[in-house]
């Protein structure tokens, strides 16, 4: 730890911070998507990464078919939203009265199913992985105040800021937003008041899907080679970030997502190029330390309600 700290401090140049903020913004978007569904269903959707992967494949196929970028992006959103809603209608809705363990295992099953389906479609050309070159132009860097910033980083930060702003307005100012907030606190009472469970859950899943599609576009620009494990590592890191931030609240979960993205960016900048393979180890070591100090979540108020379990 004592040797890592000077590296981290030295790595905090403008370039690294810009990249870390960009990664934090993408992870924050993913955290919101995961947190929205968790809020109303108390379900950690492990298949979230596969939704992003499906969107990335849509972009790759649109790119290979020679479609314009905007049409590829529309296809990406359509695929991810359709898959999200299908997942809610076919799986979550019939199972939502079951135990959290059943729901959790089900999302694992969906994740593997989608990954297997992607593999089956992908290997038809005897190779694994598809390039999505049409969106790669956004990956070019521009110079801002002497710092090279990739266009997609700026887009990621802007998209995250706008999406979070709109979400705050939606949750704070609209009737469906109020119902979602109530449902995430006490769904049973909300339903007794007349809040429609299917509408609220469906809307949360829809929003979550929209965010997954936006993330799919950004990640595909950053990594324009799509394979069945696309976004898998990012999803695991974000899930950890959501727990570290405090999964019970949308905003703490979002901050957790941003924090782990930012920390990953900074640590990545601090590590020598030949040592970046240790990035996950360094990030998860940091996570363990944070959870030991703040088990209820880095940004959560009060102590964990599970503390008396043992």
């Amino acid at each position, binding site marked *: 730890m004592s040797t890592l700290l000077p590296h981290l401090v030295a790595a905090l140049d403008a370039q690294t911070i810009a990249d870390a903020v960009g990664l934090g913004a993408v992870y924050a978007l993913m955290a919101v998507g995961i947190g929205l569904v968790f809020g109303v269903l108390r379900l950690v959707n492990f298949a979230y990464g596969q939704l992003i992967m499906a969107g990335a494949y849509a972009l790759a196929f649109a790119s290979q078919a020679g479609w314009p970028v905007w049409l590829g992006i529309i296809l990406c959103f359509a695929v991810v939203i359709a898959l999200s809603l299908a997942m809610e209608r076919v799986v979550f809705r019939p199972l939502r009265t079951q135990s959290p363990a059943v729901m959790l295992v089900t999302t694992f099953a969906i994740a593997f199913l989608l990954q297997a389906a992607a593999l089956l479609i992908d290997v038809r050309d005897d190779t694994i992985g598809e390039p999505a070159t049409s969106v790669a132009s956004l990956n070019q860097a521009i110079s801002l105040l002497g710092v090279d910033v990739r266009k997609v980083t700026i887009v990621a930060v802007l998209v995250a800021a706008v999406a979070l702003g709109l979400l705050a307005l939606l949750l704070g100012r609209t*009737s469906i937003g*109020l*119902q979602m*907030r*109530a449902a995430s*606190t*006490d769904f*049973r*009472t*909300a*339903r*007794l*008041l*007349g*809040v*429609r*469970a299917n509408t609220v859950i469906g809307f949360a899943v829809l929003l979550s899907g929209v965010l997954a599609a936006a993330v799919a576009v950004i990640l595909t620009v950053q990594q324009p080679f799509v394979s069945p494990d696309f976004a898998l590592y990012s999803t695991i890191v974000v899930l950890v970030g959501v727990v570290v931030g405090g999964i019970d609240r949308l905003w703490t979960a979002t901050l957790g997502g941003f924090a782990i993205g930012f920390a990953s960016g900074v640590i990545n900048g601090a590590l020598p190029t030949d040592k970046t393979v240790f990035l996950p180890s360094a990030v998860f070591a940091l996570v363990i330390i944070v959870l030991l100090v703040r088990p209820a979540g880095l940004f959560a108020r009060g102590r964990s309600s599970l503390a008396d379990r043992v």
Partner: protein
Amino acid sequence: MLELRDVSVRYGAVAAVRKVSVDVGRGEIVGLIGPNGAGKSTTLHAIMGAVPVHEGDVLLDGTSILGRAPEGVARSGIALVPEGRRIFAELTVEENLRLGLAGRRSREGASDDIESVFRLFPIVKEFRRRHAGALSGGQQQQLAIGRALVARPDVLLFDEPSLGLAPKIVNVVFEALAEIRSRGITVLLVEQRAQRTVAFADRTYLMANGEIRLTLTPADAADTDAMVAAYLS
């Protein structure tokens, strides 16, 4: 208006409610009293669709509402003031009230109904910008009643509205019930304060061990011996 026909509810092997039949006519206030564990709250939850009914039927204006989801029951014109208030502590008082609008069948007149709640409970208006969790128990109860009223229900179910409240606040709650009666809203009132409920309601059912044991009228309010005997039976 609201009719329960031989309703039974089971929690696994335990029969919580056994063949309960209750009639609540339009504009009536009907009480449901009994000791803890008698099945009173379960009866209300069975009406709301929050627990499955093992046998029997629940009718609203002659139409069965059995099998409807809680939100479906709420939107058919039945509102519940739940035990323990169940207000949303992190939302503001006004947001809690607005949540009650989810149970309305029509948005028309919603603002007037909120204003009407403000007139009935001035404290709710005064603290409308505060977080509901910052209110006292009595203030939260007023908010919970107001939240149910803005749904403009035909039938209002109360689950122990005076539970845990100071006597002075209990008076406020019963004054509100009197006002609700004057508005012609049908009420099914579950209460622990037996004598006061019997005196207040048009008719009161006494439940024990999941069954209706007695039907009492306001004239029976002074007959404490009969009530004690039924409670202990």
